[in-house]
């Protein structure tokens, strides 16, 4: 092969019904202009956790650099320099505003839209377009998938889930239009198939059948292409490609194990469809791995992930909390309940850390995938007992490609719209809209 030929950034490994995008490699430097380092796109992501947090264990005391990490955020200690922790951000449209009860449904629907949901459990639902979909509409055409919507529990999209609010509000944070939620995928196997399926529908089906019947990996289907491409890669890139493919194989193995017969003995108190992992931690981590793969291969640049639906009442027995999460969140200042909530919050933060560590382990030139991302983690309710929507627990991880100065706790005046953060993120993605939800502008202070 001609030594001056390099691999196109859009090159894929292909096989029967399988298309495997490549991660960033030195050898995929830009051909056209002879540059030695390719440009890396920015990514954005949003993670939602329900029922608020134990606010006394969440917010740091110190503002600025070197902030203290309270017990709930303590798992993020190794990544403190990659985080911005916010105080003072508000979603006023999550409040009742004369609509009475229904805080949980509002908290999810407002989380990325900043819009007041119409109180209805019929099909005349209405809220607003979510920030991820605003971005997807503008830049989604640049990737194979305009965005990825993931979750752990499907929930329902119809019926009354919260005091007269439709289940669509509680089960979704991503809205393509004021009236259309974007359903999330909760089966990691299906996400995996979606990411790597390629070719005609018949080829995809045939490939899947062969893999299941013969216990083959998708890597077996692209082996020829992989061998061909190895010949033109640098030594570092060969190692990176090995690591990438080992990672995929490991992911396949975990997908198989997560629904293996022995894991079906794991006790859960909610119905688990076939093909869905029963171990909640493993389920979240598999979804996080999908995000990493999707970003790594530039299959998408935008994702949302709900760790649970709004008002979720699942128990967390596996971490020593047998009570329902929602029930506990109405703590009435009972210290025992508050400590249990803190445990649940901390568990969720540990999974967030898992995602961030995975992102930061992937190099993209001089930076890492995390450096080139902006990942928001938070809840649409601050204290679960008060159901208040000001001073929301929100963390932003990543450096936005060098446009954000993390490692700080930023405290804003109360009533600062959370949507102003979204405006700042959109601006960095080169998506220019006059407003989103109830934004009044961008959020100052993300960069010094």
């Amino acid at each position, binding site marked *: 092969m001609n030594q001056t030929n390099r691999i196109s950034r859009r090159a894929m490994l292909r096989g029967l019904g399988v298309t495997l995008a490549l991660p960033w490699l030195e050898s995929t430097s830009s051909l056209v202009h002879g540059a030695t380092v390719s440009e890396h796109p920015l990514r954005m992501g949003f993670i939602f956790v329900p029922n608020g947090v134990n606010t006394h264990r969440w917010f740091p005391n110190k503002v600025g650099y070197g902030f203290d990490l309270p017990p709930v955020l303590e798992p993020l200690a190794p990544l403190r320099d990659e985080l911005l922790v916010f105080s003072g951000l508000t979603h006023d449209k999550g409040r009742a505003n004369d*609509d009475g009860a229904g805080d949980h449904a509002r908290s999810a629907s407002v989380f990325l839209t900043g819009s007041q949901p119409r109180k209805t459990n019929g099909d005349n*639902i209405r809220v607003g377009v979510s920030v991820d979909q605003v971005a997807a509409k503008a830049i989604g055409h640049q990737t194979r998938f305009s965005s990825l919507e993931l979750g752990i529990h499907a929930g329902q999209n119809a019926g009354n889930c919260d005091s007269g609010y439709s289940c669509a509000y509680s089960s979704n944070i991503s809205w393509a239009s004021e009236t259309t939620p974007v359903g999330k995928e909760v089966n990691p196997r299906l996400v995996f198939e979606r990411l790597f399926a390629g070719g005609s529908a018949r080829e995809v089906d045939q490939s899947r059948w062969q893999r299941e019947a013969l216990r083959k990996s998708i890597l077996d289907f692209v082996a020829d292409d992989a061998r061909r491409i190895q010949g033109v890669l640098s030594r570092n890139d060969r190692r990176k490609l090995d690591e990438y493919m080992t990672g995929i194989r490991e992911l396949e193995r975990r997908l198989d194990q997560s629904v293996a017969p022995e894991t079906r003995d794991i006790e859960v108190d909610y119905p688990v469809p076939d093909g869905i992992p029963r171990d909640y931690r493993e389920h979240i981590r598999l979804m996080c791995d999908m995000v990493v793969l999707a970003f790594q291969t530039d299959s998408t640049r935008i994702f949302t992930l709900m760790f649970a639906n709004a008002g979720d009442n699942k128990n967390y027995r596996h971490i020593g909390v047998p009570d329902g999460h929602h029930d506990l969140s109405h703590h009435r200042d009972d210290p025992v309940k508050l400590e249990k909530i803190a445990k649940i919050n901390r568990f969720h933060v540990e999974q967030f850390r898992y995602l961030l560590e995975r992102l930061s382990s992937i190099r993209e030139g001089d930076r890492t995938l995390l450096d080139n991302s902006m990942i928001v983690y938070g809840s649409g309710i601050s204290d679960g007992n008060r159901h208040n929507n000001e001073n929301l627990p929100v963390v932003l991880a990543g450096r936005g490609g060098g446009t954000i100065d993390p490692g700080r706790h930023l405290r804003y005046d109360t009533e600062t719209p959370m949507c102003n953060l979204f405006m700042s993120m959109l601006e960095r993605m080169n998506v220019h809209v006059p407003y989103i939800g109830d934004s009044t502008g961008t959020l100052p202070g993300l960069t010094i």
Partner: protein
Amino acid sequence: MMVGGVRNRILALAWVCAAMFGLTQVPVAAQYEETPLEQVLEIASSGDRDERRDAAYEIVRRESFDAPVVETLAKLTADSDRQVRFLGLLGLAHAGPRAASQTAIDALLRCIQDGDDQVRFRAADALGKIGTLALPQLVALWDSADSQTRVEIARAIGTMGPPARGAQELLSKGLEDSDERIRRSAANALLAVAPQDDALHRALTEHADPQIRCLGWQAIGRHSAPGSDALERLAGATDDPDPLVREVVVMSVAKSALDPQRKQQAILATLTDPVPSVRSAAVAAIEHAGADPQRLSIDIGNLLAQVEDVQTAQTLLLALRRMPAPPSMEAASMVLAAAGRLSLPAEEVAPVLQRVGPSIVPHLLAVLEETPSLEPVVGATLSGFGAAARDAVMQCTSHPSAVVRQAACAALQSLPSTAETGVALQRLLTDADDGVRAKAIEVVGQMQHVPSEVQAQVAEAPNDPSPRVRAASIRALPRLGLEAGRIESILRNAIVDEEPLVRLAGIEVAGQTGLVASLVDDLPTLIRDPDPQVRVAALHAVAGMPAEKLIPPLRQAILQCIGDRHDAVRAAGIEVASALHMRDGETVAALIDSLRGPESVLVAVLRALEGIGREAQAALPAIAELLHHDSPTVRTAAIAALAGIDKDTPRLVARLIEALDDPAWEVRQAAGARLGTLGPQAKAAVPKLFELLASEEDSDFASGALREIDAAPKEALQMFVQNLDSPDRRTAYFSIFFLGKLGADAKSALPELKTRLKEAEGGPNRSDVRARFLRQAIESIEGSTDDSP
């Protein structure tokens, strides 16, 4: 033309019919999309609540802001429905200059003085976006406005930007306000109206308020030209007395147009700042200080050579890791020297050395021979290279120096498993040096898959003459795939070994493998072991045992540990006693005796006593003394214990009320929560809890406790009456609520309540919610009085 309401109902009915026949094409949310604008405007003013909302939504959505629309939006800001009011404000903000009319301005000026935070905030946003039309009125309003309104006035002016320069004098006045929020808002507004004003920047950087100085320095960093005096002053501001300012200064320096050498100097100066957060900021700034990376790394290395405290040294290591370019070999030598001198953690030193690359390996080995204590650092560094340093690692496995061979053991783990590495490992397992053998066994203990020949070798190691090797082999047992009987036999020998290191390994592994129950007869001896670490490990192993296995000798041994002279043993003994539900008099007495020593032990004892509950009455006096302990954690635990133990409720309530004045929030919160759980019996605490409603920190738990107590003492009557008009909504509502709770005792408050009911039902301060509460209270009082109708 049909009246809006009737027309829409017919439309809705038509939609339902269409839906039934699957003919629905257009969602109901878009019901006014086809409606002419003038009709929408009419509905927005006169429809029912849902119609007004949908109409207002549609008006904003259309973004057609001619005069009738602006007028309607202005009217909507006074609508009775909150959502409609918001849409009115939002619409005016989106209209921007198109809403420049006196009607809109008047409405917004009213709103900027509203009692509702959101309304004020949104009004300020809209006023700012409209432009300078409202500027004279805003300036005129300043002097008579309250603090919150002034904050918003400043915000509105700031949003207007440079065209509002005429308000600079007013904003400068705001900079000197006693309210920090006003000062900050004024400063931000000044920077928005005059972003490049050098005199302004200077004034801000010389302000007494550190937050204002931060804004000033940031502005200088962003806007000042290269070579300017302002930038020189910025570089010199790294000695500001406030650490928050120094943080901002160092980052502003890093991003400014300052000369690269000067930048580097300023950042270096901050890397050894006495305040950790400032050092963190300096590390973050390092990325922007790449003028001369080699020189920079040497400079940092020189700093490392001078520092005496580990924390500053750790900051400097982090800086070397974060530098855009790898450190030089010279810098790496200084890092190694500091690591040896200060015993820096290997996990923080190794990543720095790894950045230099595998070329550093010979140097590492040379230093290691002189300074054997650097073995963990060298091992971690070699491991971090992985396959890149494979040849070097394999050579090190046969190095004459035992310390080097030990480091090579650690690094072997990171290499892919091959026949060659397997042979090297087997050789190391039989090394002449026991440190090397022990290390090699540790590596085996961490392997995913242990080859059978290595398994066999390690399985013999519990008989090794060296206690280090025996201990390491015990710890590796779970990995070897031996059958349970053999493991148990090895452990039985280990727990009676003459060396404490081996006994410790034995009992810990017994705990991990679930074999503790089979060693129960040996446990009392282990719990009394001469070595405190073994005692602690034995106690932890016992904690997981079923209660029926708690034989009397074991029980006695645990009780003895509660009074052990080593704090760690005591803490473990207390924990185990709790876990095994030991609640008899002997245990209580032992716990009371143990109420001494460090915080961790005290808290453990208090929790154990709390768990015992009312059977621990004898502990009350000792616990009460701890309510005055220095540590808030201990005081909090003491409150929890008292609440769980004390049968004398009035005494308990009195103590908890006293604790509501504690300087530490967690203590107050614990006291408040426990008062709540007592219900009406704690009503004596209501006045104090009521006071706490005014505190931002305490109002949450105070209101929770008040709700649970659900009763009030009649002595608090005057206090409730005085707070009926409190600006804090929660206080006002609780006043009304508790007056109702007082029933007949609150008869004298009826006139006050009735006056306020009239105001709440009509008039400028109308509020349905408040009216409802007042009615309920009045009914409750009148229903309880003898002469009620």
